[in-house]
């Protein structure tokens, strides 16, 4: 799609150079959270509740403290009191107060001179519990007989008469849904469920913290956002943010789960109690699964009306989501707006409630709420398409949102690329490959808002004409490479001459984490503005030397050039020449930009999947998988494709086998990767990708965030493909073999 206002013909943008962190990562040199150590460092271990819900009667650490080499034990009594709101929730989750609220809830922590000693000491800490009634299922939690876990949890939004476990209520919509349903030829209504899944990042949470008696401290931590870690840790411990310096490590995956704190403040609390010695804490995989944020589980009622020609006349949803034992953590506020975001429908009604259960405090997970919403709505649209014998892409083209459509959640879309993804999916060879016996094809579209957020970036010109960029967004998906490409393009210098560093909290203004698919968009946008500032200064230096006005100098191809007829004839002054003498022409040259970045454009995608289901075992094999998604402009196409493939892989896992399984005792049954079944490499085909580029007018190079949309369509697309292969519709994820086989057998009668 040609647009006058968007630049094309880039030299570097759209190329695929090596990522700057690549060699370190493949050789093992990259320093992740657990790789950091300091002299005199202690190791920590955490005592966790084995009960889903229990009053903590007594904690006796005397036997642990009697061990040679045990230096400190902390319990809730060591943390400050008087916190409120989310700060209190964070503190309650860091160390339980009077009650343990879920299996795995931290109750005490110990620091000792070795990791084994700390683990031995943790086993010696005696905790007396009084077990309380619990509930872990989202629907069971609002049954009349369900125990009220946290009396008074409801906020102002909850109507009177709702169950005591309801924390929040939301409602919005437009148009007359009853008239819409009356105008439809077919109206269907079903309930869909998704189980909680974990982000499954390979690197467990790890931190080294040091806090002296003077209240000044440091932390080295694996995180998506170290300013968040600083603010939250400072709040939990009652120290000032400025007195905590936080440095991020390389990060082995986050997917939203590392945008908050879980155990990080414990390293500081233990350090302070141990006389300021640094304390290291590395979670085991079981701790990660039991006690860090998975995403919500959901139970969702959907009603949609469709005409025989595929026109959708009205839609209505009621979502119930639980985000664990703390309010505010279920993504109900994102799931509802995402539900119909791909469509332009005259009448819509959205309602939803957040429910409290005895599960770990949920955290963000890649497009929080959108995959569940898509599973419900896109599954039902597929059901209607099959019932009315309509092509699922045609129906989406017919009803899909376009430029200028008023979105389902209110704002009007500016320039979006949903239609382009649908057209490309329809034209792709995968969409017309003939299917064999027991094979089926599923189609679904997906959406994510994307995000801008608080951003602060600095850029400095080196004496040799290279550029160093300091960003505050940890690089998870290749953002250093992408930001480097944009800055190099902008300055007109080689990619290799730009180094992008992720710097600590003392080096920049506050940055939000790498979340909301914002790093390449927002840090990139700020880096371009910082480069503009440096370019203006370099032009001034050249102008001063040439004795002309700065306005008579233009910057291109990495050099200042005299511009216009009156500027005189001067040979171009390169960035290297300007850098070499900047000390004597006015001092260091740098640029800085800080902004709460707006103008982020939504990213839409459409997926097509073919599966084969073994009718005798219910086992699903993914035969081929296509992701088509709008990237705005793909700065580094390889990493855009990587995001598309990664999102699809996680979505496939969620659709097929991943789930949190709780026993009747409220304990998590599968807190290891053997039984929490994320896909292994051989489970997946090579995932085909098509990058659509409908440039985002809100970014100088047209960038849209690409990280999250890709996890959204797989859930309904897989279930729809299974429906095509077997004739049975699974409305409750995961589509695990026992469930699919039982459905096949039930359908046979």
């Amino acid at each position, binding site marked *: 799609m040609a647009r006058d206002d968007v630049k094309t013909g880039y030299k570097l943008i759209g190329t695929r150079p090596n990522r700057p962190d690549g060699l370190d990562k493949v050789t093992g040199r990259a320093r992740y959270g657990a790789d950091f150590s300091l002299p005199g460092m202690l190791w920590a271990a955490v005592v966790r509740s084995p009960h889903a819900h229990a009053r903590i009667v007594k904690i006796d650490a005397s036997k642990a403290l009697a061990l040679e080499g045990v230096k400190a034990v902390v319990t809730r009594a060591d943390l400050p009191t008087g916190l409120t709101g989310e700060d209190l929730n964070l503190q309650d989750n860091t160390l339980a107060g009077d009650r343990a609220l879920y299996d795995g809830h931290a109750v005490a922590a110990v620091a000792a001179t070795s990791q084994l000693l700390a683990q031995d000491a943790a*086993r010696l800490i005696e905790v007396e519990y009084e077990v309380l009634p619990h509930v872990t299922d989202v629907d069971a939690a609002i049954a009349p007989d369900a125990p009220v876990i946290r009396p008074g949890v409801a906020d102002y939004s909850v109507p009177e008469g709702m169950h005591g476990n309801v924390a929040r209520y939301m409602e919005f919509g437009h148009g007359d849904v009853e008239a819409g349903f009356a105008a439809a030829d077919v109206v269907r209504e079903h309930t869909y469920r998704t189980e909680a899944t974990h982000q499954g990042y390979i690197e467990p949470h790890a931190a080294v913290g040091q806090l002296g008696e003077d209240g000044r401290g440091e932390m080295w931590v694996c995180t998506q956002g170290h300013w968040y870690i600083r603010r939250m840790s400072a709040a939990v411990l009652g120290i000032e943010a400025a007195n905590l310096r936080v440095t991020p490590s390389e990060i082995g995956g986050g997917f939203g789960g590392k945008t908050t704190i879980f155990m990080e403040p414990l390293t500081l609390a233990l350090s302070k109690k141990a006389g300021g010695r640094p304390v290291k804490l590395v979670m085991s995989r079981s701790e990660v699964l039991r006690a860090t944020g998975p995403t919500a589980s959901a139970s969702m009622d959907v009603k949609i009306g469709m005409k025989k020609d595929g026109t959708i006349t009205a839609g209505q949803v009621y979502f119930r989501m639980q985000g664990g034992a703390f309010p505010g953590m279920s993504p109900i506020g994102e799931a509802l707006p995402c539900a119909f975001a791909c469509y332009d429908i005259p009448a819509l009604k959205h309602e939803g409630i957040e429910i409290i259960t005895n599960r770990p405090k949920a955290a963000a997970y890649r497009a929080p709420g959108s995959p569940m919403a898509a599973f419900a709505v896109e599954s039902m649209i597929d059901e209607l398409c099959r019932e009315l014998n309509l092509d699922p892409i045609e129906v989406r083209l017919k009803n899909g949102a376009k430029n200028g459509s008023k979105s389902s959640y209110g704002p009007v879309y500016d320039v979006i690329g949903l239609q382009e993804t649908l057209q490309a999916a329809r034209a792709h060879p995968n969409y017309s490959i003939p299917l064999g016996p027991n094979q089926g094809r599923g189609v679904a579209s997906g959406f994510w808002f994307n995000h801008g957020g608080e951003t602060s970036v600095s850029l400095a010109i080196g004496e040799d004409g290279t550029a160093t960029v300091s960003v505050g967004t940890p690089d998870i998906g290749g953002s250093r490479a992408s930001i480097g490409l944009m800055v190099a393009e902008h300055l007109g210098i080689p990619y290799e001459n730009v180094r992008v560093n992720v710097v600590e909290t003392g080096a920049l203004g506050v940055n939000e984490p790498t979340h909301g698919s914002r790093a390449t968009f927002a840090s990139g946008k700020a880096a371009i503005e910082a480069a503009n500032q440096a370019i203006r200064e370099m032009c001034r230096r050249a102008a001063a030397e040439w004795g002309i006005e700065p306005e008579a100098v233009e910057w291109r191809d990495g050099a200042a050039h005299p511009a216009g007829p009156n500027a005189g004839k001067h040979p171009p002054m390169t960035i290297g020449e300007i850098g070499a003498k900047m000390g004597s022409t006015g001092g260091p040259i740098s640029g800085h930009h800080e902004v709460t970045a707006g103008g982020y454009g939504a990213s839409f995608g459409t997926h097509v999947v073919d599966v084969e289901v073994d009718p005798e075992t219910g086992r699903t094999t993914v035969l081929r998988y296509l992701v088509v998604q709008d990237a705005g402009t793909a700065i580094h196409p390889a990493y855009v494709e990587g995001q598309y493939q990664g999102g699809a892989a996680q979505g496939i896992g969620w659709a097929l086998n991943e789930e949190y399984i709780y026993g009747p005792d409220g304990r998590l049954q599968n807190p290891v990767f053997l039984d929490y079944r994320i896909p292994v490499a051989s489970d997946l085909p090579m995932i085909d990708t098509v990058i659509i580029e409908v440039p985002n007018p809100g970014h100088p190079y047209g960038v849209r965030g690409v990280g999250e949309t890709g996890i959204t369509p797989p859930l309904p697309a897989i279930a729809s493909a299974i429906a095509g292969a077997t004739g049975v519709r699974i409305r409750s994820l995961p589509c695990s073999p026992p469930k699919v086989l039982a459905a096949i057998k039930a359908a046979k009668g």
Partner: protein
Amino acid sequence: MRYHTPTTFQDAAAIAAASTGTLRFLAGGTDVLVQMRAGMVQPDDLIDLKHIPGVDRIEKTPEGGWRIGVAVPGIVLGAHKELVRDWPGVVEGMNLVGSTQVQGRATLAGNLCNGSPAADSVPGLFAAGAVVTVTGPKGSRDIPVEQVPVGPGRTSLAKGEVISAITLPPRAKNGGDAYLRFIPRTEMDIAVVGCAVNLRLDGDRVAEARVALGAVAPTVILSEACAQAIIGTTLDDAALAALAKAAKGAAKPISDKRGTKEFRIEVAGVLARRAARIAYDRAKGMKA
């Protein structure tokens, strides 16, 4: 913890007999070390068997069978062409355990002694009629493999006893075996149901058969009813249906996080049919 490195099975047995605390034998270590790291077991005595001469060897017996040392890892079994030719089902079961890295360490004896009803190599050993040599303070004895496991995580071995070798019988002419397991993924998983079939043909008819099922009872089980369902048949559709029915009847599983009881019963029948078909084709000399 005391770490021992005896050089004879007699010495290993003597150390084990004298141990008064928690005891573990260490061969590949792919169960024991993981359990130690997870805090599931903290042995007082850990007896490493890998210093005993011969434990890393696969030897042909005078009768034409195979004697497999207790420290022979899966990857070595898989690379042993003659063994794979004779007992493809046994080897493919072992080779399904864990990852490539785990295959470099994990052993048949360890998989057997870990006592899991879902152990992938054990149904194949049952179906093959493997014999286990047990060495104790009073000497060695040979027992059928199916007498070793007695429950989840438990074996019939007495205190002071250790497995010193596993012997596969000579492969009969026109024989073949196969092992299949069901997992929701493609690798790196644990059997929800497993089934091994070993048979010998007389012409087109099944003359002898042994069928073992995994993960459907507290131990791997050998099903005589399954064997009888196919002996004397040409493994036609009726025989396969009878085999499936017998396997479903023999399966006494529980529902757990890995699968439901109903699912396991159903899939036991499916796997029995499919494994029998592969074993039959192998016995016929067809590639499978």
